[in-house]
């Protein structure tokens, strides 16, 4: 299940607030020079917290169809 | 005794205003009571629900004009009515309606000012406020009725102009006309011209709510009609979204003012009486114009060739109409229940070439025909 989530960061919109970095329960992110980096995508549980908390609509976590349905 | 004609009524000015609003298609009223405008609300609180319209008494005048703008954006013709103190409070939101180009009608039944002043007495002291009461340069349309019938007609006209030009229109009445009960024969509804806002004929993606085109008056979609546009009191561009771009701001604000300027001939209405051979020109409006008319008749009877220009539209100011007829007169008499607000504009319009005699009264009493007559016939 974990491996299937796909995370993208829209750097045009990201304001580097580090909220995603701080709150991802799986520590998927680390802060880069300007933008967060997705360092442990495989740990992502698709909990959607980062997406919901990103104030800038910069994160998209895409869950493949069947996973979404099984939630 | 004749069989009474159902179209003949003895109505108060305020009643005629309420009835005129209904005739104009107004189906929403939001207000806050204040003497001497309250009867407009009272009549509409009874009549609007009876025809499926909505009446709401809001918590204050600011809320009332806010609700009116909201209703108008929803596509319902909307009215509010007040007097000086409430008119002062509405100014911020009147500016919003001008800026966002939301049609609506605001009645100000003038009473003695400044401040709480003379709540039950008559005045015409809000003429300049009606023009300049809100901050920033803005256009406005202000009409002023002299009779009960005219209150009816002008309320309809106010709605028509508001819709046509996407602008708030002020009906500037006064306690005298508003509380005067007078015989009125109302016109056949079929004969009344009703103008509705111009609707967009483009697809929603192409719709520009503040488009600058050859008419200068953008088409207006109502909320909920699929156009999903943005309305703001911030400086905005053709799309309606805020901008800080000086060129775009300039273009919009110029259009905003131009749409009224270039149509001033359609908006400005005056009535002249005995002006052909006159030597003394009287310029009056509202209740005072009734006295002025009698004064002119009386002056003529005493051999003084007086004439009257009655302003039905106050703003845009009828400068051209005055310009056309003042050259040959010896003097101009301007009676008004204030300290000379219109007289100042008349002086501007006539380049102070003629003596402008002010007949002013600010104690709550109407100006009598005789007070005007004296000024007409006096030398110098």
């Amino acid at each position, binding site marked *: 299940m974990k491996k299937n989530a796909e995370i993208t960061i829209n750097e045009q919109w990201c304001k580097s*607030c580090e909220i995603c970095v701080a*709150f991802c329960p799986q520590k998927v992110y680390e802060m880069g020079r300007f933008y967060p980096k997705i360092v442990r995508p495989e740990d992502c549980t698709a909990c959607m917290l980062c997406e919901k908390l990103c*104030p800038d609509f910069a994160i998209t976590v895409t869950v493949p169809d069947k996973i979404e349905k099984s939630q | 005794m004749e069989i009474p004609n159902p179209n003949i009524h003895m109505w108060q000015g305020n009643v005629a205003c309420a009835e005129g609003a209904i005739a104009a298609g107004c189906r929403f009223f939001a207000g806050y009571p204040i003497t001497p405008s309250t009867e407009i609300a009272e009549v509409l609180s009874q009549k609007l629900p009876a025809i499926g319209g909505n009446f709401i008494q809001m918590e204050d005048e600011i809320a009332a004009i806010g*609700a009116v703008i909201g209703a108008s*954006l929803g596509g319902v013709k909307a009215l509010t009515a007040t007097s000086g103190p409430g008119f002062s409070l509405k100014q911020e939101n009147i500016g919003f309606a001008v800026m966002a180009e939301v049609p609506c009608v605001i009645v100000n039944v003038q009473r003695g000012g400044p401040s709480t002043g003379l709540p039950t007495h008559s005045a015409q002291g809000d003429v300049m406020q009606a023009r300049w009461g809100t901050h920033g340069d803005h256009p406005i349309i202000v009409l002023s009725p002299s009779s009960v019938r005219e209150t009816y007609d002008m309320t309809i006209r106010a709605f028509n102009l508001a819709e046509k030009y996407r602008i708030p229109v002020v009906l500037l009445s006064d306690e005298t006309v508003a509380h005067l009960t007078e015989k009125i024969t109302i016109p056949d509804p079929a004969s009344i011209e009703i103008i509705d806002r111009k609707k967009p004929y483009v697809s929603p993606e192409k719709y520009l709510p503040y488009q600058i085109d050859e008419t200068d008056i953008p088409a207006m979609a109502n909320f*909920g009609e699929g*156009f999903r546009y*943005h309305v703001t009191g911030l400086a905005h561009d053709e799309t309606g979204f805020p901008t800080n771009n000086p060129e775009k701001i300039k273009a919009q604000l110029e259009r905003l003012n131009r749409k009224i300027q270039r149509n001033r001939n359609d908006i400005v209405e005056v009535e002249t009486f005995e002006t052909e051979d006159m030597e003394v020109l009287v310029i009056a409006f509202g209740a005072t114009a009734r006295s002025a008319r009698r004064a002119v008749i009386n002056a003529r009877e005493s051999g003084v060739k007086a004439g009257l220009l009655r302003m039905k539209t106050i703003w845009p100011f009828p400068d051209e109409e005055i310009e056309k007829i003042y050259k040959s007169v010896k003097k101009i008499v301007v009676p008004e229940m204030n300290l000379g607000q219109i007289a100042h504009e008349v002086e501007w319009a006539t380049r102070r070439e003629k003596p402008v005699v002010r007949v002013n009264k600010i104690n709550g009493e109407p100006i009598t025909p005789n007070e005007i007559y004296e000024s007409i016939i006096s030398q110098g």
Partner: protein
Amino acid sequence: MDYLQYLRKDKMPHIWCDGCGHGIVLKSILRVIDKLGWDKNNIAMISGIGCSSRTPGYVDFNTLHTTHGRGLTFATGLKIARPDLHVIVVSGDGDATAIGGNHFIHAARRNIDISVIIYNNYIYGMTGGQVSPTTPGGKKASTTPYGNPDTPFDISRLAQAAGAAYVARSTAFHVGKMDRYIEQAFTKTGFSVVEVLTPCPTSYGRRNKEGRGVDMLMYQKQNSIGIEQAKGKTAEELKGKYITGVFVDKEQADYRQRYDEVIKKASKLNK
């Protein structure tokens, strides 16, 4: 979900500062709308003036950005004229409870079917950090350089006393609660209020040494308590805590239902 379908993408990125909670609240609103499947054409979002009140500019509904504090008055007119529209007001603590306080209590009294989401960041964000009616006592603002001497409003309590049909409070961090409350508010017939406590790092956090947005959210995470749990606790124990939960949820005729009765009566009497 696809937030973008509700956004005016060409207006993005939004003007809110890095770490500002306003974007989090907006997302919650959009999730609920998406869940409810509302037609964008039938939604009107209205605001006053403030950072929070910039929200309507970003969403693809019928949107109206009014004057400071007056959003609810415009909304009232629109809702009465167009009962078919879903009318949502977004407001700041200053907009809703300072200059707009009267409209707020009166809309609640009327129980008009409007939902208000108040982005409560305890400060006037837009104008650079002046004290607001919800700024906690002792806190610094640009106009309380010695600490705020005043006691803040409890917005939810006020809404309740004024007659709102639904009143709830969440933090921006607690996205689950926030979604739930906003959904309940949106589906409530009558006046519903959701107060969301949200960080303003720029104008509040910095001055009060509460760190960046991320730190302020962390504080929310660690210091929130549901009303149920709060009940047993003393004032001392609750100090610095955010009490969240649903304060009011009642059924009563809304403005429309009551005015429709008026219309019925009037039509009958005037036939």
